[in-house]
Every structure is written in structure tokens, then in C-alpha cells.
């Protein structure tokens, strides 16, 4: 690897013990998947937005190519070689995949094209028996999984989620035809899985997984509530580090136990009055998916008293309470209750900035992730107009560190911090209350 492309990226310093130990959880999970495969049981590669209980209820072990790409962003084959994400992205680009395409997609496509699926961090993802994706949020996941199905010759199922738009708020009870349609998708998924693997659907098992998922979700919501405390007991580095069990193992007892421990640790810190740092002076929002190859960015403002207190990505929404309805209807209703329009997302971010007492926003302008970057300038505008909060844009890919201009980004972040420090020095409020709030 030539010196000029070497970027001085690094991992983050985390506050919480549970967060520091998540790596063990992930390693163990990958190993369990390989065990599962060796035992002749089916493996699914899935996009991150699918409801995970479906897999655990159907006896499938799930791997998530998006998460795998993030893993590749922090791992090198040897200490001197480039990051695995860059190695795989190059393979895809050499085969005609545009550099404008999502970093996750390029990394995983390169990994598939490389031929040997075990030639990757943690032995790679165990070879899939089926692929599952959803239409939700982004187009690329659908096209990317289609492309993988064609290349791997592995059957694909797509869950088509109606994309709902509301005038106000991010949650509304879905309409009957929407629930009917999405439920039929879930039922088709179940039938498809039975056809490919021979495993039959057991509603009781599904209900059990739903129960774990709901209890886990409640814990995660409780943690989000706890994170509003001043000083901030758990920041974005911890938030991103601890999302894996909730995002990818929801519906299991191990995920529930993980968040129970995390909730207890956060609670204990609040009781002790311990924040992420000694002297918290201002709190920041991180918008978007993190720059996985450079998580150290989350500690950047700590020397001047700045902490990242909240990140909207990967956090759960409140779910309708569990009922004794048919589990597939329950899942459909829950999923469709959340709207995804930009207007609803902006409204939610404004509320969160007030709740978490945010003084500034670091907006990850991820150049290959359209659903993340499209609202970025509007977020900056409404934060400034409604709350008087400054923002800074961090421009790069999610996993491909070749796009990261460290010097330029640090200069921007320093100028951004200056704006907040000036307010502090002048004794001005760090946030102006929104009209009507």
C-alpha cells in the first residue's frame, strides 16, 4: 500500500464496559453462524431492514452484508495492508461497478467476486442458502441483492414494504390495504423459506421470538430515555458500538440480556453522576451512518468539552403493544406504523435535538448513500432556522476510507467548534427554543 493513500483513521474510545465488549459478541455471533452452517442448517444473507424475528423463528442464521462491509472497514488482512473494505471495493470497481455506488454494495460485491468467501475478516459470512432484502428506505439494497442472487445463483426473496408518507409525525397506524399487502409479503417469505429449506413455520415459535424482540425494544427505548441525562452517560461511540445485538439479533434472548446489562450500566453511571468526560460543556448530534473506518472521530471534541450525545441512526421506534393477534399481522402493523418521508425525519430530528439538549450537528454527508445524504442540507437549514444550532458536513463514504480527507474535515470541524465555543464564552444559550415547541 502506498503512503499517499494511508489515512490515519482509528477506533473510538468508548465509555461503557458493555460497549467495549461488543466485539466479543460479534465474533461469537459470526462463529455461531459458521457452526450453524457446518451443522447443515440454512444461512440467510439479509439486508439490515428486515424484521429479524422472522429468521430466528424459521431456524435461519442471518448474516448482514451491510454490517459485514462495516466490519471490513475496520479490519486489515495484515498490519501493512489496506483495509479489507478497500480491497473488496477495488475488486468490484475493476469489474465495472461505479465508484458512485453505495460503499456497502461495492465492498460486498467485491467480496463475492473474489470467489473465496472465507477470505475475509472473521472467516467471512458463511455461504448463503437464500438471500432476503426489502424495498424499504433505499433502492440499492434491492438491486444489489438481485445482483448477488444472479452471481451466487442463490434464491432471493424481496419484502416489498409500502413507503408511507405522513403530513405530521413519524408514526401513524397503517391502512387496512397496506397491512394486508405487507402481511402477504411476510407470508410469502415464510412459504419461500419452507420451499428452500424444508423448515415449517411455527406461529408459537414466532410469537416467542416476537416476545423477546418486544422486550429488547422496550429496553432500548429505556436506554434512549436514560441517555438524555446531563452529563451524557452514553455517547454516539457507545451507541454505534452497541447497536449490533438490537439491529441484528432482535428476537433472541442473548440480545435481551445484552441490553439489560447495558441499561444497568447506563443507569449506574447516571446515579454516580458520571458522564462520558469529566467536564461536559456542549453536546452534539451525529446525523447519518458513522464513518466506520474512523470511529475515533467521535472523541474529537472531547478535549474542549464536546461530546456526541445522540445519533438517530439504528435507534428503535416505539412499537404498538404486543397482542395475541396473528404474529405476521403484528409484524406488518409494527413495521408500517413508521413513516419514512424527509418531512417526518426532519420533524423527529428537531424534537430529538431539544430532548437531548444538542448544541450542534455533525452531519455525515455520505456521498454514496442517497437516503442519508438527500436530507442533509435541509437538516442543516432547519437546525439553524428553528433552533439556532450550527452544523458541519463530513463528506465521505461509509466504509471506503479512500474518500476521507482528514485535513479538510478537521479544519471544518474546528471552525464548527469555534462557533459553539464563542457562544459558550459569550454566555449565550446553545439552543434557541423552536417556535411552538
Amino acid at each position: 500500500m502506498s503512503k499517499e493513500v494511508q489515512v490515519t483513521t482509528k477506533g473510538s474510545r468508548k465509555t461503557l464496559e458493555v460497549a467495549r465488549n461488543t466485539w466479543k459478541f460479534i465474533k461469537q455471533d459470526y462463529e455461531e453462524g459458521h457452526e450453524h452452517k457446518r451443522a447443515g442448517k440454512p444461512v440467510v444473507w439479509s439486508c439490515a431492514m428486515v424484521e429479524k424475528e422472522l429468521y430466528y423463528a424459521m431456524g435461519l442464521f442471518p448474516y448482514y452484508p451491510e454490517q459485514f462491509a462495516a466490519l471490513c472497514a475496520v479490519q486489515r488482512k495484515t498490519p501493512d495492508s489496506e483495509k479489507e473494505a478497500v480491497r473488496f471495493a477495488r475488486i468490484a470497481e475493476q469489474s465495472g461497478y461505479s465508484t458512485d455506488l453505495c460503499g456497502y454494495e461495492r465492498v460486498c460485491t467485491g467480496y463475492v467476486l473474489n470467489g473465496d468467501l472465507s477470505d475475509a475478516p472473521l472467516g467471512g459470512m458463511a455461504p448463503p442458502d437464500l438471500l432476503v432484502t426489502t424495498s424499504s428506505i433505499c433502492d440499492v439494497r434491492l438491486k444489489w441483492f438481485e445482483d448477488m442472487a444472479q452471481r451466487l445463483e442463490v434464491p432471493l426473496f424481496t419484502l416489498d414494504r409500502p413507503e408511507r408518507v405522513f403530513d405530521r409525525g413519524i408514526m401513524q397506524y397503517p391502512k387496512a390495504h397496506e397491512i394486508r399487502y405487507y402481511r402477504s409479503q411476510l407470508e410469502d417469505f415464510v412459504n419461500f423459506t419452507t420451499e428452500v429449506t424444508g423448515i415449517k413455520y411455527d406461529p408459537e415459535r414466532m410469537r416467542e421470538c416476537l416476545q423477546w424482540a418486544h422486550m429488547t425494544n422496550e429496553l432500548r427505548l429505556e436506554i434512549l430515555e436514560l441517555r438524555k441525562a446531563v452529563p451524557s452517560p452514553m455517547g454516539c461511540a457507545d451507541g454505534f458500538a452497541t447497536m449490533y445485538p438490537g439491529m441484528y439479533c432482535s428476537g433472541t434472548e442473548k440480545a435481551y440480556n445484552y441490553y439489560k446489562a447495558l441499561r444497568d450500566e447506563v443507569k449506574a453511571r447516571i446515579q454516580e453522576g458520571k458522564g462520558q468526560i469529566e467536564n461536559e460543556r456542549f453536546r452534539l448530534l451525529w446525523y447519518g451512518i458513522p464513518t466506520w473506518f474512523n470511529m475515533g472521530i467521535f472523541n474529537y471534541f472531547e478535549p474542549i468539552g464536546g461530546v456526541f450525545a445522540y445519533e438517530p441512526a439504528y435507534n428503535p421506534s416505539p412499537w404498538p403493544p404486543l397482542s395475541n393477534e396473528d404474529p405476521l399481522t403484528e409484524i406488518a402493523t409494527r413495521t408500517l406504523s413508521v413513516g419514512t418521508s424527509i418531512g417526518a425525519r426532519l420533524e423527529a430530528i428537531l424534537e430529538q435535538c431539544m430532548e437531548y439538549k444538542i448544541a450542534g450537528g455533525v452531519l455525515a454527508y455520505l456521498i454514496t448513500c442517497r437516503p442519508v445524504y438527500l436530507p442533509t442540507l435541509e437538516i442543516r437549514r432547519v437546525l439553524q432556522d428553528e433552533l439556532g444550532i450550527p452544523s458541519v458536513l463530513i463528506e465521505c463514504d461509509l466504509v471506503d476510507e479512500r474518500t476521507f480527507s482528514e485535513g479538510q474535515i478537521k479544519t471544518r470541524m474546528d471552525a464548527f467548534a469555534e462557533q459553539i465555543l464563542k457562544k459558550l464564552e459569550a454566555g449565550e444559550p446553545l439552543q434557541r427554543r423552536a417556535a411552538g415547541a
Partner: protein
Amino acid sequence: MMELFAQYTEDRHAAVRKWKERTGKQVYGYFCCVTPEEILSAADILPVRITGTGEPLQLADLHVPPNSCPFARSCLDAGMRGLYDYLDGVVVPNTCDFIFSMEYFWKTLVPRPTKPALIAGVDMRPFVHYINYPEKIVGRDVVPFYVEVLRGFKQDLERSLGRSITDEDLARAIGVYNEDKAQLKRMYEMRKSDPPALSGYEAWQITYAGLMMPKDEHAAALKAYLDDLEGNGRRGAEGVRIYLSGSAMDRVNAEIYKLIEEYGVVVSDDLCVGTRSFWYPLRPQLPPLEAIARRSLGTACPRSTVTAPIPENRWAHILNTTKEFNVEGAIFYVLKCCDGRLAEIPHLREKLREELGIPSLVLEGDYTEEGVEQMRGPVEAFIEMLEG
């Protein structure tokens, strides 16, 4: 007759304004060819497709990131500048990520002609209509779901207009749209000959005008034009036969036709201002909303998929639109950040080469005329290579 169609290439806004002044009827803008235009037409509204200008952005770049789709940004900029101030409504289907976001951007940033008519918090006269278009176009329950979506859209229109849109209105619109599709198909049939009866650019101009003209006028004018072409036995220029696949082909992007046809001739395409907008007719024997839903779902948009273990719906459309056209080479002209297209191209290129023996060239455009000109070298070299 070409002059009639060319008006829309010259100044589409002036042509539509003139029509509106003459008829006093409403005009709605829409994004993407999946839009159920037939419902608008049944309501006596003229649907016109929204396109950009290719000019430097004046307003939209404060709101939309610079690396996002240059076509969609230009559309928004045109709206914000008031170039579309004659629109009485706008229809946004959930197609690609950016078009989906137009539901917010257009509603928030583009001035609307009338104030919202709020009753109990509901706008009785919505300016922006969102269509929850499924991403899966074939599959169990897709059609009943989408029919319900279209029923909701129809009701919104009825509320705005203060009158109902009957099945008879819809059936009449379906008849008109089918006649136009039949004439467009006939035009493509005439491009199968060697040399083709008309150039790719002419065919594009005619198809493009059809996105703004009332479909009955377009179908009648096209019929007369094709009758005349058949009558005088005219043939277009000879050249290497090219299949063109790409992003939204409006006036700016269509410069690529002119460039390619300096060296060869475009005979067929995989374009939303092209085959995807008319190839598959409506089925009048079905209940009207279902016929419209099935037509809309059948547009083979690169963003869509089907229920199949290995989905190949996009390849199926390419097979349909290359068959008998004697295609010698394919050019993919794709705008930057058009992820749906960029993601599928490596696979489709392989299939074209391996299954049809058709080599291809990929060009990534930036939605400027200058950007097209910079493609002269690769286009010339590619066609020279095909000529052997």
C-alpha cells in the same frame, strides 16, 4: 408534422402554456412514466412530465446536495424558479430514492398556485399527490394493493375537482392511451428496417412530445406522420445499429442521440422516454383501475423487481426491445448517482455479450450538453470498433 412535435423540444413550457390558455383546462406535472396518467386524463386534466433545464442551478443547490441526481436537482430548480407555475398539481410516485423525496422537496420549496384548503387538518386540495408505488411489480397481492393506492389518488382528485371520475371516464382514457401506444409501437416497427424509416432522434422527439401533448392529439398527429412516411417510402440514414439504455431522456440528455447518430443510428432503447413508456398496452377488458394499475406496474423501471428466485425482469424487457431490431451495439448512458441503473449495468452487459453477442459501452453523464460532447471520443471509437 415534425414541427408540431419539435415545439416541445424547442420550448415545452410555452407549448403547454399555450394549450392551457386555449382550453382553460388544468395541467398536472408528474415524475416518472409509472405515474397513472390515465386517471388524470380521465379527469380532463393534462398530465405533463416534469423535466429539467440543464442550466446551472439557481435555487435548488441550497437544499439538495451537489452529488445527487443532476436531472432531479434540475427539475426541482426549475420548479423553484417558477418555470412550472402553470401546474395545478404534481404527482410524485415512489420510484427511485430521489423521486420519492420530491414529495417533500416540491411540497416545501416550490410555490403552489393555490393555498391549502384545510378542513380538520386535511388539505382538501392537495398540490403534491404521493403515489405509493410498489417496488415489486409482480407478486401475489401486488395488484389489489396498488389498485387501492390508485383508488385513493382518484378520490383525492375527485375531492379537489368537486366531481367524480367515472369508470366510463377511465375507459375512455384507456382507449385514448392505447391508441397512442399503438402508434408509438408502429413507429418502432418502422425502425426495424435497414436503414430505419426514421432516426433515433426523430423518434425520441415524437415520444418526448407525447409526454406533454394530450394523447389523442399526439396519436392522431403521429398516425398522420407515419402514414406519410409509409406512403413516400422514406428511409433514414444508414449506420451501425445501436440500442440505447439510460436515465430520463429529456432535451438535455437527448443530445446523446445527436452525438451517436453522427456515427451510427439508434434503433431501439430501454428508456423511460422511450419503450418503457408505451411498450405494454392497457387491457380494456379489465376493470379500469386494475387495467391502469397493471400498465403502471408493467413499465420495467430499473428500480423495480419481481417475485422470482433470480429476478430477471429487466433482462426480459431488453430481450423484448432488441428482438428483430438487428442491434449491433448497446450504449448505456447513465447519469451520475442513478444507483438503480449503475447497480444493474455490470450484469446486463454480461448478459448482452454472452447471450446476444452484443458489445456495449458505458457512459456516465452529468446532465450537461458539454458533458455529452466529452463523450464523443468513446462513442466514435466504440462505433468504429463495431464497424470492424
